[in-house]
Structures are given as C-alpha cells and as structure tokens.
C-alpha cells in the first residue's frame, strides 16, 4: 500500500490558540487504509491535530488536505458535505445529551432524510452491535457509564460508514477487556474496510497492538502480523512539532532522546 493515495495530509501546519502556540510546522501524511497513531504527552496538541483534520479548527499557517480537498481553506458549507466521509470520536465523547442513544447514532442519517426509517434503525443496530451496546438504544447518554458513552460515540462516528476515522483516545477510561475489543474493531476497520485513520492514544499497548496484529478476514479473527505490514505508523508530538514519524520498528530503534524517554515510561 506504499503507493496508495494520500488521504490525510498536513503540510507545515501551525496553529496558536489563545496566546499559546500549539503546533508549529507539523507535517504528516496518511495513505488510504493506513492508521497513523499520534503519541505525545498531555497538552501536546493531539486533539487539536484531529480537529484540524476535520476542519473544526483552521491553521494559522500551512495546509490541511483531506480526501483531496483543501480542508483548511474551503468554506464551511462545503466542509459539511465533506464531513460525511469523515468520522470523529471526541475525547470526551460529546454525545448530544438531550437525545437518546438511538438518536445520537442516527443523527446524521436522520438529518439527511436520505434513508427510510427502517434502514436507519438497521444501521444503528449494526453500529451499536459493533461496540456491543445494542441494549442501550433507548437510554439517554447521562444514564450510561463513561466507557459506554465512549462506545456510543464510536458507533455514532461509524454510522455513515466514513472513509476516514479520527479517534481521540478511543480506549481512554475503559477496562482492559473492553479496550481490547475496541482496538480489535479498529483493526478490523483498517484491514477489512480499509478505513484511513488518525488515532490518538495514551496507552502504548494499543499502539503496540495496532502494529502487531492484523485482521484475518478469512477466519474472521485477529492474527499476529508476523512481518506483514500492519499498515500502521507512529507520530510523536513534542514541543509543538513531530519529533518522530515512522514505523513501529523505527520507533523502537529511534535514538531521539524524547522518544526514548517517552517509550520508557
């Protein structure tokens, strides 16, 4: 897939929020079907990078190009259309608290009026099943645990079957079993649906899992990658820019002091 088209590109992107420079000259590229894991300590600008990718924030300098479209400069109205092809899971879930889980997941489909009600319900059920949460359809977000809210947020992002997924700490605050299940789903999206993603995580074991496993569609199970490309690369943010960008092997071999420090903790 080394020659697959580039679907997410940051070209020398800088952004200042309030008075703090958050990113300075960040460049990155993600090809179709690839997952780029963003690592970095709290406040490094990972969430800001995801919001730049979907056009919720605009850079002060540089360009963001997603699916061939100039996200950083296009008008908001055009962005609304493009965002149908991009799903995002916010760090704090950001579910609509006055809508039920069903209505949250169906939000975009309901807004579009393009599918009939039964088809929407079937899609919602399938998305919730993927995160093992079919039974909470009629509850309100406030009635769910934090981990359940996170999974509903993932289901909501998947509802339009986007080509690009942006995950902000999808496993944050989850127990190890649920977290592993979620990571399995993400690997399946990558290997079966060839979804391109940017994934922020604080858990190095998630990053390791993404790099070490692939989804075997034939047997419908997770398999060790065993030298095959797992279509996953890493980017470490520090000091407002990328101090590392490369494969898992390169990450472990890196002599960059911050990367070594980061991996040791």
């Amino acid at each position, binding site marked *: 897939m080394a020659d697959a088209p580039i679907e997410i590109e940051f070209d020398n992107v800088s952004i200042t929020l309030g008075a703090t420079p958050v990113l300075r000259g960040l460049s990155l590229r993600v090809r179709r079907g690839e997952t780029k894991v963003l690592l970095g300590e709290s406040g490094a600008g990972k969430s800001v990078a995801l919001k730049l990718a979907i056009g*919720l924030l605009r850079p002060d300098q540089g360009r963001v190009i997603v699916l061939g479209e100039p996200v950083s400069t296009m008008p908001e109205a055009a962005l*609304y259309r493009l*965002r149908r092809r991009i799903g995002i899971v*916010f760090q704090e879930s950001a579910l609509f608290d006055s809508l039920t889980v069903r209505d949250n997941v169906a939000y*975009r489909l309901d*807004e579009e009026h393009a599918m009939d009600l039964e088809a929407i319900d079937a899609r919602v059920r399938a998305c919730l099943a993927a995160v093992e949460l079919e039974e909470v359809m009629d509850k309100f977000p406030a009635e769910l645990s934090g981990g359940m809210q996170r999974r509903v947020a993932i289901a*909501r992002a998947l509802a339009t079957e986007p080509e690009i997924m942006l995950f902000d700490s999808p496993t944050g605050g989850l127990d190890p079993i649920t977290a592993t299940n979620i990571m399995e789903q993400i690997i399946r999206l990558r290997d079966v649906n060839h979804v391109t993603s940017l994934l922020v995580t604080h858990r190095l074991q998630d990053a390791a899992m993404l790099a070490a496993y692939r989804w075997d569609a034939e047997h419908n199970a997770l398999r060790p990658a065993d030298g095959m490309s797992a279509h996953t690369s890493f980017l470490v943010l520090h000091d407002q820019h990328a101090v590392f960008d490369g494969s898992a092997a390169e990450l472990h071999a890196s002599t960059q002091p911050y990367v070594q420090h980061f991996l040791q903790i």
Partner: protein
Amino acid sequence: MLDSGQEETDLATAAPPRGEEEIQWGFIGWLKGQLEGLQAYSLLTGRTFRNVLARPFYGGDTMLQMDSLGVGSLPIVLMTGFFTGAVMALQLSATLAQYGQIQRTGQLVALSIVRELGPVLTGLMVAARNAAGMASELGSMVVTEQVDAMRALGTDPIKKLATPRLLATISMTFSLTIIADLCGLIGGYLYAILALRLDGRQYWYTAMQALGATDMAQGLLKPVVFGIIIATVACYFGMSARGGTRGVGRATTQAVVSASVLIILTDFLLSRVLIGFFGA
C-alpha cells in the same frame, strides 16, 4: 475548562496595583475586546437571519422552542400584565382625581399598557426566563463539545440551534405581548369597576377611543424588536461560553443582563423614532 483553571490562579494571586500606563492599556484592551465582541455578535446575528430562508428548515426544533417559550412563559406574563394594569389604574386614577378627570382612567391605562408596559415588561420577563434558558443550554453544549460534534456531523449549529430560537422568540414575544396587553386592560378594568366604582362601559369606551394607529404600531413593533434582541443576545453569549460550568453561569448572567438593558435602551430609542415618525 483550561480557561477556568487559568482564571483561578489569576484570582488566587490577587493582581498587584497597576501603573497608570497599564491602566490605559487595560482600557484600550477592554475596548478592543468589546468591539471584537460586537463584531462577533453582528456576524452571528447576520448568519442567524440568513438561515431563516435556507434549507433545511428545522420546523420541529422551532415548534419545540415555541412551545417551551410560549407555554412556559404564559403564567408569568398573565400575572405581570394583570397586576400592572391594576396598579396603573390605581396610580393614574389618584392623579386624575386631582383634576376631576377620573373617568379617563381607561384611556391612560390603555395608552401606557399598549405603548410601553405591555411590550417592555413582556420583553423583560421573556429575557429573564428564556434568555437565561437559551444561553445556559447553548453554553453547556459548547463547553461539552456538543456544538463541535454537531459541526462534525455536518449540521450548521447556527441553522439548527440559533435560527429556530430566533423565530420562536420573535413570534412568542409578539403573541405574549398581545396577551399581556389584554390582561393589563382587564386588570385595570377590574380595579376601575371594583375599587373606583367607575362605569365599566365608559372604561372600555375611553380605552378604545384613545388607542390610535401610532399606539398600535408602537405596541406591535416593539415586541418584534425585543424578540430579536433576546434571541440573538442569548445565542451569542451561549455560543461564546468558555471555561466549563462557571463559564456557562457567566454567559447566562451576561445574556439576561445585556438583553434586559438593551430592551430598555431600545424601547426609548424606538419610542423616540416612532413618535417622531407618526407624531405622539
């Protein structure tokens, strides 16, 4: 949330006395902030109005807002209107009696209610109740990233949240004002016949005689303008809420205070302009 943390430290390390230069810069900075706020407010208001005609039209959301605004505000508007009418009859009749003109109570009650008190008091009541409600609801949605999520899911928050609130507030302030006017007239009427022992028919006759086209124009235009003020101010402060729950609280207070002050200011300006236009 980060903002509120920042502010906490600012408060904790109580600011040292400032030099003169700093105060000047502080003032210019403040002025700049106010102007930027005004610009943002105008932009938001413009976009809210533009979306009135844009597709899709959120009819359901508009109805929902009209319901919570109109039905919810009805009791306080009924009460306010009624007792204002009664107290106007009480106060005005005392003055009129000095000139032997007590039979003109109906006329003065009608004029003061329809021109001024009906629209202004309804506006203030709607501002107190609904500007607060709207600003805190939108503010909470902003600080919990629900507004960002909405944009990420392809919905324009102005279209989905602000425009329905604008339409609902205009139409409901208008209707509630008419209801308040009627209640005020009835309140004045009851006081006139029960306490002042005036002739009821004469009360209504002088009241209706007194109300001309100018008074009607004033009385019906004002609530439309007040509705616009309430909705746009509430949406502006709600949408620009920053810094967690405290930020939402602050936005709510600012929305109510600004809307109320603007209503009273605009009332004066509108009265002046309309009287200049139509004659008193």
